[in-house]
């Protein structure tokens, strides 16, 4: 195995493209090193992206905030403008693992690990986050929900990597939130998770909404009926109840040791309703 720490995205891509066997990108390493230890991953070359300036920065752009692929979630939580503008994404990333994990784990890593229970992914999808995917010949901006194709599977080619993730600028009177259920208060993997993003007009009527649920299917689920239930309403009790029902209906969970199908279908609706209430408060400008 080789270890490389290139200084530019171009060099990183060239290393992946030129890898004889399997190349793996090392951002925070909180999944990769565990996989290597258990024998699940045996890369021929590890490409550490933390020396690439574009991947280590959080930058305001015309269209939103660009978060480098190697930015740790602790750095995101400490970035005031990021936490204020996209609280749902920042709090979702902040739920992953311990303080120690927070010091290393990244949004791009959480996404590319491909876990159906990844906390930051529903939150990113709800606000329309876009991953900047760079390959040898071209770069493309891809909606986050197009990256993961199944448990542990992603749509990136062998010689492609994510350089950054754009959190698009929010319209006025917008709010987002993410909630998950775990059996304890910290240090666990989502049994179910729900992210809601919504925008209100000046009269308080919802004009746009996205409802994304996680850990209740092989991939995240975009609950369009849930969003429809909110749009055109003042996000009152009845609308939230309808959204809750739509989420429970859309969930396709498995039974496992962490939760039964019935429980997951129920609780994902409850989480979505509560996340909707928080997103509403945020859209109205209160915490």
């Amino acid at each position: 195995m080789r270890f490389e720490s290139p200084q530019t995205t171009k060099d990183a891509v060239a290393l992946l493209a030129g890898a004889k066997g399997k190349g793996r990108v090392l951002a925070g390493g909180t999944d990769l090193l565990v996989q290597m230890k258990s024998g699940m991953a045996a890369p021929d070359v590890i490409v550490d992206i933390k020396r690439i300036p574009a991947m280590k920065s959080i930058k305001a752009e015309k269209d939103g905030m660009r978060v480098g692929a190697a930015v740790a979630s602790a750095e995101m939580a400490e970035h005031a403008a990021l936490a204020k503008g996209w609280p749902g994404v920042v709090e979702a990333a902040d739920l992953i693992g311990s303080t120690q994990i927070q010091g290393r784990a990244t949004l791009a890593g959480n996404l590319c690990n491909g876990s159906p229970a990844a906390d930051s992914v529903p939150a990113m999808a709800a606000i329309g986050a876009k991953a900047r995917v760079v390959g040898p010949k071209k770069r493309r901006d891809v909606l986050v929900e197009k990256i993961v194709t199944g448990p542990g599977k992603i749509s990136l080619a062998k010689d492609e990597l994510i350089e950054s993730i754009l959190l698009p600028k929010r319209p006025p009177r917008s709010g987002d939130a993410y909630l998950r259920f775990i059996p304890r208060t910290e240090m666990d993997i989502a049994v179910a998770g729900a992210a809601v993003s919504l925008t209100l007009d000046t009269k308080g009527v919802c004009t746009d909404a996205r409802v994304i649920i996680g850990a209740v299917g092989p991939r995240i689920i975009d609950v369009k009926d849930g969003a429809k239930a909110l749009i055109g309403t003042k996000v009152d009790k009845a609308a939230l109840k309808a959204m809750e029902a739509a989420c429970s209906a859309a969930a396709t969970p498995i039974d496992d040791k962490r939760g039964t199908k019935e429980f997951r279908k129920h609780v994902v609706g409850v989480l979505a309703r509560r996340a909707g209430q928080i997103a509403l408060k945020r859209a109205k400008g209160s915490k």
Partner: protein
Amino acid sequence: MSQIHVSTTINGDQAEFLCDADETLLDVLRDRLGLTGSKEGCGTGDCGACSVTVDGRLVCSCLMLGAEAEGREIGTIEGLANGDELHPLQTKFLEHAALQCGICTPGFLVAAKSLLEHNPKPTETEVRYWLAGNLCRCTGYDKIVRAVMDAAKEMRKA
């Protein structure tokens, strides 16, 4: 397999080592540099016994490669005391009997020091959340939390 040459700073001292590409920082610290204060509990980032700081950021040294340490500033449990003078956290852990078998203690101390640097006046809830990634199978945590709160109080006076 050729080894990687790494120059780094550990507890303020220049350090150099050779390591394999897949060798963790924890293994480098313990097996190559003789810094055996950091412990391996789980080896998968769940228990926090291997906690160190990298450029001031708390991380699990079992989830980081030794090669990544190039040019970084590493802080380990060995850097906590000032010569023979214990750090207030160490003194308070002794006073409160906040340890039994001791395997988790270095990790708790490094993590608690990092907490108090970020937040000199944490609430009990903040202490418990910050230390959620450090597992102790002996004490039931109560004495550890009390020791950290007490050390924080004393350090604010200083």
